[in-house]
């Protein structure tokens, strides 16, 4: 970049409030993590995950004759229809949710805390940006990493499926499943990133923010299990945990058509409705804490 060696020069343009502040904030954070090789590391995880999941999916889709016989036997036992694609997506999201918690703990939970530690909020808000721009930027940066885990593999699976399928119109046929899978990832990722950012806004110690977020998720999970299966023995208490709620939402998005299968998973309509409400409540609470905290931090910093 050539440098003007003369003294101060006027700038020809005019500074004005920008609508793209959130994108600029997200881009600079993602770029920063890229320099830390985190993105490359995550991309590798996604690539390996896709390599592992795609064969499972394809194997399930094109089962061997012996497995077809097994499926027939299961149907005779009462599982009248098993939607393999739903099963694969459901298994993927259920397992990926734990990794999403981990990523949020490592990345999203630090995004605001490190700004607080570096007192960067004073610099951010010396610019013509709104609090919502700042928060959206942070959210997009955090969500980017979760999306690598939750949204990219379903797309890869979908592309692999329509690539090898000999069924005419497979792309359109499988599209609803892809959209549901993306919705599941967006709901889970959105809730987790919001809560992680809320935790991040409450401290200026990045390590504490990560530990508090991971601890909160673990505690809520344990508490949900204890209340639902131990103390009250009522399934509704699972809703204490956002991860457990996300699992119910996944069951709702990828249901089996067989009635017995649903009963076997013990996911009732009431639980599904409660799960959606629980995720909504966690997200709303996270947003409220975020708005209150960031406004206050900026004022007192």
């Amino acid at each position, binding site marked *: 970049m050539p440098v003007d060696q003369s003294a101060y020069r006027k700038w020809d343009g005019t*500074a004005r409030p920008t609508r793209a502040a959130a994108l600029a904030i997200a881009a600079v954070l993602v770029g920063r993590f890229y320099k830390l090789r985190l993105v490359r590391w995550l991309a590798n995880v996604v690539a390996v995950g896709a390599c592992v999941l795609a064969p499972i999916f394809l194997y399930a889709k094109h089962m061997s004759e012996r497995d077809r016989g097994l499926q027939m036997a299961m149907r005779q036992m009462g599982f009248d229809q098993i939607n393999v694609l739903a099963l694969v997506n459901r298994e993927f999201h259920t397992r990926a949710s734990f990794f999403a918690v981990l990523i949020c703990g490592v990345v999203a939970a630090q995004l605001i805390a490190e700004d607080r530690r570096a007192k960067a909020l004073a610099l951010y808000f010396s610019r013509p940006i709104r609090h919502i721009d700042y928060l959206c930027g942070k959210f997009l940066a955090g969500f980017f990493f979760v999306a690598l885990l939750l949204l990219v593999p379903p797309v890869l699976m979908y592309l692999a499926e329509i690539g090898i399928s000999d069924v005419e119109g497979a792309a359109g046929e499988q599209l609803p499943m892809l959209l549901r899978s993306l919705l599941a990832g967006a709901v889970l990722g959105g809730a987790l990133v919001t809560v992680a950012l809320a935790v991040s806004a409450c401290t200026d110690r990045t390590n504490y923010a990560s530990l508090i977020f991971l601890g909160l998720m673990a505690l809520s999970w344990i508490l949900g299990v204890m209340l639902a299966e131990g103390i009250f023995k009522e399934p509704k208490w699972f809703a204490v945990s956002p991860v457990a709620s996300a699992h119910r939402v996944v069951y709702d998005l990828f249901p089996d058509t067989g009635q017995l299968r649903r009963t076997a998973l013990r996911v009732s309509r009431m639980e599904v409705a409660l799960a959606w409400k629980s995720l909504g409540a966690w997200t709303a609470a996270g947003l409220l804490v975020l708005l209150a905290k960031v406004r206050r931090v900026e004022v007192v910093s």
Partner: protein
Amino acid sequence: MLVAVEGLSKRFGRTVALDKVSFSIGGGAVGLLGPNGSGKTTLLRILLGLLPAKGTASVLGLDPMRRPREVRARIGYVPESECIVPGLSGVDVVAFLGRLAGMSKGAARKRAHEVTYFVGLNEERYREASEYSQGMQQRLKLATALVHDPDVLFLDEPTNGLDPAGRIEMLDLIRELATEHGKHVVLSSHLLQDVERVCTEVLMLRSGRLLRHGTLAGLTSAGDGSYRVRVRGDEQRFVAEMRAAGGDASGQEDLLVTLPAGASTDLVFRAARAALVQVRGLAPTRRTLEDVFLAEMEGDGAR
């Protein structure tokens, strides 16, 4: 009008940060002087639209409480605290903040190189900002304030943590911006020498109240009818003539002359004529800003 405030008040719980402050400043280099906790930073934050307050305020004709983003687009702000955007190099920080001010990516990048160079961050601008010394961080903050070429600079304690040489360099840079590049500068500081070196107008705050407001020349002129007079000839005869005229004179070479109440400087020339001496210099005695500041602080304490 650069800044106009009327009855501005701000409380944090029971603490009164600003108490019915009213003033207006037209431009140039203005010093905001006061001890720590006097409300300087709060005043700047209100003017930036970062804090709500009672009363009215206007910056460049805009209400910062109603149109904060438009105000901030036209102001460059150097915060008091040591602050950096973590994980970025110096030039990246400046370019990023330029982007947030509404500049295009290319323009922000080019401009970031120019202003980092201008503030004296040469090759250091490629180093990560968190590794900067305090002096370099202050320069970097000034560069972030300049990147979008604002009309007005709000500088909150810009010499904090600088060594004496660095402090003088920074102050000279600020003065250059004010005098040669037409920037309006509001310099908040508790260091009298900083304000004296850069500013032509001063606002003095204490405990959230405005104690004095005026030009530096006006505040430092003694205003008590005393002058520094240099004469060529018989000084003792001149002193005697002055005393005979009802005034007073003392000292050697640079005589401290006090005129009687209501008298003009004509009296000095009449006494010189009578004493057959030549007046080589005549200037009103000046107090330092420190004298004025301490007198105001004591006066306010007594009140």
